[in-house]
């Protein structure tokens, strides 16, 4: 059928690069954005590291009307949406407003904004709390602000499945495209590194307590002991293949398959749901495991979870076969932003014929039988990529991406 959903625009904001090409160049070179938290003194916290986006100038991107009513995550999402639409060469003002939708993922909401308002509430009183607190911190705010900014009034929503959300949003956006919405802005951007946001994450028990940026986040390593949190993500523009071709758009790739599952209850003897999510995504794409050129791993950085992911990959692809990478070792885990960023990286890998590396896995665990692309980028043709994401609480999601056919890429050198 001609009902493929394609990605025509990418906008990236990441700890190791603000802007798609900045992020991609740094990622291929193995430049990490993980360091000590710089925006406040985090030396007293058990997890003092993060992947911060350090050179984003919100005031340079957004009007002064928007700044007082937006959390940092929304400011970054709005900038990324501008870049994604510019990359897609779309002028939303020229399109029917009910023909464009917005579906983003959100893992935590606007914690930094909310922290400031709660501090005012307790130290000065309720009359000091901003009226904008009413919406600035809630899950759907990035979707809402992107919708308002670009005049997109078609089907919209927000997916809240922790880190799996970056893929679940794309799966849901694809549903809207299939039902006839011409263009959907999707993806995820999170920024929950304020003291309150960080403390909330520490309670998950999954944050690394190391203060060494090169050792703290080592997925699939024998020393894996948690992840480093980060901020940022990616916003993507999705369209039907037909409408993208009609307007002569450059196509980054196709969302060929999507699968989502939920884990059995903790303590159950049943297999975790990740393998099934991968198989569902492959079946949805009508592809076999052998067709997959590279896997972008969830890379939890927690021994038990790493083992589950490696076992699922070994079961589907065979042990030590398909190349697996985790560029998030250079950004930290970005929650709802992570998987969207991996999808962006996978599409760029297709464009440039190169797979970004996984950093800082000095001693890969023998019970993680996967073929990790380590330390340096690997030049190879990528036609099909699998992106995996898991969310705290049992969420599993997988997306299969296919490269645009050769000769259909005007504008690509």
């Amino acid at each position, binding site marked *: 059928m001609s009902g493929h959903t394609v990605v025509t625009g990418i906008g990236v904001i990441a700890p190791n690069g603000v802007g798609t090409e900045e992020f991609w160049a740094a990622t291929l070179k193995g430049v990490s954005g993980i360091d000590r938290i710089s925006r406040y003194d985090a030396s007293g916290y058990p997890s003092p590291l993060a992947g911060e986006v350090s050179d984003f100038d919100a005031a340079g991107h957004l*009007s002064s*009307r928007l700044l007082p009513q937006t959390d940092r995550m929304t400011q970054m999402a709005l900038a990324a949406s501008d870049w994604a639409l510019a990359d897609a060469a779309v002028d939303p003002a020229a399109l029917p407003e009910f023909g464009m939708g917005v579906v983003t993922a959100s893992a935590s909401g606007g914690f930094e904004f909310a922290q400031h308002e709660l501090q005012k509430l307790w130290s000065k009183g309720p009359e*000091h709390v901003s009226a904008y607190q009413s919406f600035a911190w809630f899950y759907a705010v990035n979707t809402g602000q992107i919708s308002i900014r670009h005049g997109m009034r078609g089907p919209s929503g927000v997916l809240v499945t922790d880190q799996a959300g970056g893929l679940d949003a794309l799966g849901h956006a694809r549903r809207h495209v299939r039902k006839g919405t011409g263009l959907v802005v999707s993806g995820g951007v999170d920024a929950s590194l304020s003291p309150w946001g960080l403390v909330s994450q520490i309670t998950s028990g999954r944050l690394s307590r190391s203060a060494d940026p090169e050792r703290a986040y080592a997925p699939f390593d024998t020393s894996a002991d948690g992840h480093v949190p980060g901020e940022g993500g990616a916003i993507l523009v999705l369209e039907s293949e037909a409408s993208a071709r009609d307007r002569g758009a450059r196509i980054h790739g196709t969302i060929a398959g999507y699968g989502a599952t939920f884990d059995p209850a903790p303590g159950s003897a049943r297999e975790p749901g990740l393998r099934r999510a991968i198989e569902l995504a492959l079946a949805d794409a009508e592809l076999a495991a052998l067709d997959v050129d590279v896997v972008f791993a969830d890379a939890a950085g927690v021994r038990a979870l790493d083992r589950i992911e490696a076992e699922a990959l070994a079961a589907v692809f065979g042990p030590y076969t398909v190349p697996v990478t985790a560029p998030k070792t250079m950004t930290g885990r970005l929650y709802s932003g992570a998987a969207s960023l991996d999808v962006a990286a996978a599409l760029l890998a297709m464009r440039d014929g190169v797979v970004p590396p996984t950093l800082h896995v000095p001693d890969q665990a023998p019970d993680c039988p996967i073929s990790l692309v380590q330390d340096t980028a690997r030049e190879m043709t990528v036609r099909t990529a699998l992106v995996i994401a898991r969310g705290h609480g049992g969420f599993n999601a997988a997306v299969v991406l296919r490269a645009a056919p050769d000769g259909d890429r005007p504008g690509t050198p």
Partner: protein
Amino acid sequence: MTAPALTLTDLTRILRESAGEDESVNLDGDILDTPFAELGYDSLALLEAASRIEREVGIRLSEDALGDAETPRLFLNLVNEPITSTT
């Protein structure tokens, strides 16, 4: 004691500080009778500005009356009315 009345300059300063400024609008121009909507301010922006004014001036404004104050002139009248009448 009569509290100094809130001026248009005060109002535009507070609007800028609490809700920002639309690039396409000149707040320093003759805006006394320009509806807030045309100045780029929605009801939430006015609520935010009103709460700042309440704190600075030490008054309480009724939300119903605020909803009817659609221009800077009406807004200033509303704010300055209780200041002068209660002293």
